[in-house]
């Protein structure tokens, strides 16, 4: 017992015991699972991924039909989750910024509207809001009596119909990719410190923008179905609309609900950022004779964004996870395709493992990218002032 008085020895003993308990639990679980699977006559492994699903999916970014494999269906769900997550974050950010500006404005009525908005929407669960919007959207009139805007956008119980470009899905994705790359290149060129001294900056910026636009137009013209217009406008044919793009009510309900709910949270984060900007900074900008808009856009906003970016990143990751509600309205996101696959194939353990791995990859990638952005634009030591 003398030896147990030694702190180091004790620490080693504790850790070995901790590890042993952990290993025992894992071993017991694996043992239990294998015996149960053997008793049920189930085969484990990932072979089922190649079988066809026989399942239809309402909304997918890539082509999918019932003869495609489980792997393809999981991939559809994965992409849908990423798509919905990013869409929701962007929308929630726009809503949040507007409400935050309302909340910090010097006008009493705008303050009150902001406060009302936040208290009304933040205190009701997201899933309830999603169900509400879904019920509201599916109770819109049928396509024959759809509400129309400029005769090109139609709202009906079957979804929202909007004009689109007359190209196949993958070309559309290519155009979007080119646009994102172009914007990223432009932002990087304009913000990177080591490129500050380059000659002819405006010319290069215009060059990047022009190149991006030209590539996009080039892809569209090349990929267009011969003899068709570039833009396809939805029009009523029989009982439904043809042409354009259909935004199904499932997707709109989730996007609207997350934008409204997440916007309320993001507004509070951004507001805290505005309040944390030192008074001296704003007063100095005014003293230099900057216009109110310049004070806001060049001094107040950039400083506020930098102050709250870490919190905002947490909020984005949280919002991304919160959009996993597709199953309640029938939107085929990653979770709901996994759930369907478990019901259909019975390969519970394998699919749960895929589910966990998929979400770990998505969330860690998202937080990694956002943290790099934060590091790149954070204020360095001497730039901090109050």
């Amino acid at each position, binding site marked *: 017992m003398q030896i147990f008085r030694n702190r180091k020895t004790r620490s080693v003993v504790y850790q070995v015991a901790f590890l042993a308990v952990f290993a025992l639990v894992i071993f017991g679980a694996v043992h239990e699972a294998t015996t149960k699977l053997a008793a049920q006559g189930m085969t484990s492994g990932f072979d089922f991924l190649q079988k066809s699903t026989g399942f239809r999916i309402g909304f997918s970014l890539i082509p999918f039909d019932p003869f495609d494999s489980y792997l393809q269906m999981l991939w559809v769900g994965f992409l849908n989750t990423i798509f919905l997550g990013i869409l929701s974050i962007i929308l929630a950010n726009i809503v949040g910024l507007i409400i935050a500006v309302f909340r910090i404005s*010097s*006008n009493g009525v*705008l303050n009150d509207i902001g406060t009302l908005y936040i208290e009304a929407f933040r205190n009701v669960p997201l899933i309830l809001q999603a169900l*509400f919007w879904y019920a509201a959207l599916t109770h819109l009139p049928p396509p024959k009596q759809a509400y129309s805007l400029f005769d090109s956008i139609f709202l009906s119980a079957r979804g929202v119909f909007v004009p689109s470009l007359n190209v196949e899905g993958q070309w559309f994705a290519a155009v979007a990719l080119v646009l994102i790359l172009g914007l990223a290149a432009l932002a990087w060129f304009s913000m990177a410190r080591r490129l500050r001294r380059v000659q002819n900056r405006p010319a290069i910026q215009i060059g990047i923008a022009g190149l991006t636009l030209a590539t996009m137009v080039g892809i569209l013209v090349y990929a267009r179905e011969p003899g068709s217009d570039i833009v396809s406008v939805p029009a009523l044919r029989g009982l439904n609309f043809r042409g354009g793009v259909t935004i199904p009510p499932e997707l709109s309900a989730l996007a609207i609900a997350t934008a409204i709910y997440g916007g309320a949270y993001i507004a509070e984060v951004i507001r805290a950022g505005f309040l944390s900007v030192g008074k001296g900074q704003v007063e100095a900008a005014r003293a230099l004779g900057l216009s109110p808009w310049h004070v806001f856009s060049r001094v107040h906003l950039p400083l506020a964004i930098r102050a709250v970016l870490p919190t905002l990143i947490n909020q984005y990751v949280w919002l991304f996870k919160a959009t996993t509600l597709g199953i309640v309205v029938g939107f085929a996101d990653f979770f709901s395709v996994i759930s369907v696959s478990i019901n259909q194939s019975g390969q519970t353990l394998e699919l749960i493992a895929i589910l966990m791995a998929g979400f770990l990859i998505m969330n860690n990638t998202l937080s990694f990218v956002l943290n790099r952005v934060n590091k790149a634009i954070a204020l360095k030591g001497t730039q901090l002032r109050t």
Partner: protein
Amino acid sequence: MTAVSDMNTPSQSLNSGLQPDGLPARLRRRYFRTPGNAVISMVGMAALFYLAFHALDWAVLKAVWISPDSTSAVCRDIAGACWAVIQQRWRIIIFGLFPYDEQWRSMLACLVMVATIVLSCLPWSWRPLRLSILWCAGFLIFYVLMRGGLFGMRAVLPADWGGLTLTVFLYAAGVLIGMPMAIAMALLRRSDMPLVSRMTGALIDGVRSLPLITILFTAALIFPFVLPGWLQGDKIWRVIIGFALFFAAYQAEIIRSGIQSIPVGQEEAAKALGLSYWHRTGRIILPQAFRNALPPTINQLVITFKETSLIVIIGFFEILASGNAAYGTGEWSFAYFEVYIFVALVYFVFVFSLSRYGAYLERRMRFGQH
């Protein structure tokens, strides 16, 4: 011009600090300081009044409150809300499928739990012992009332629980089990044994990077596979364990941040006095950590209450699902709007009062800080 008018603002606020002015002056400063501001205020107020009038018109003036013949005939061709659906179907929303004759037990149990929550908000009960006794007693009474089988009450299995009572039960059980787990996880993660702290850290970060619904789903589906029969228990308990784990992972990080904001000298002084680890933790570190972490803890409790609504996805009949069932019959299927508003109001009352309480605590704690 702008610059000049801006320069005037500080002196104005200085004046107002010297002589307290009445409501009209304050209103004028808040809503009509400059002509531009006045225009925005008028437009905003007009929009608000328009909305408020329509909401009032729909929800009160033109609404139908009672259905005399318990059908939806009374709501045909009306322009307002049909609150008769609530009057007819409130039992299913609040109690779910609980046997009709025993619904007073469900009501009483719900009240007991709410009373427990309210009591634990009073400063009197902020002692570890009192708080644990209060919650354990409240939870036990709740459980006995609901489960029955004792004192001549009919036994009702958890599978038949539902509605608001199930939501409250899930919340209370999740927090009651999750809080000790959170404290343990926070302390283990701070341990100076690398293996222990790394593994706890990996568990916490892993749980935090998964959506709650995947955890609940896993708990409902995986536990039957990996646990021997005698450990499995009812499905609701497996889900509660998953829910508690999720709450604990977030709460552990909150407690840990509370611990980290305590000056190192506190623990060093306690060590120098020869206090043991448990004395240091229980008497010096944790009380201060909880005090520091109180605002984010309340926030987490608020979020957790809203997140209980996710168990509807794995097939439990909590308030959201029972709301869906309330308008799900052909009779009332048009009244989804009224039912959702009613359920939203129930959540709002809980969540809003809890978050107001959190704001009050935050103000109160600014005093007497060392």
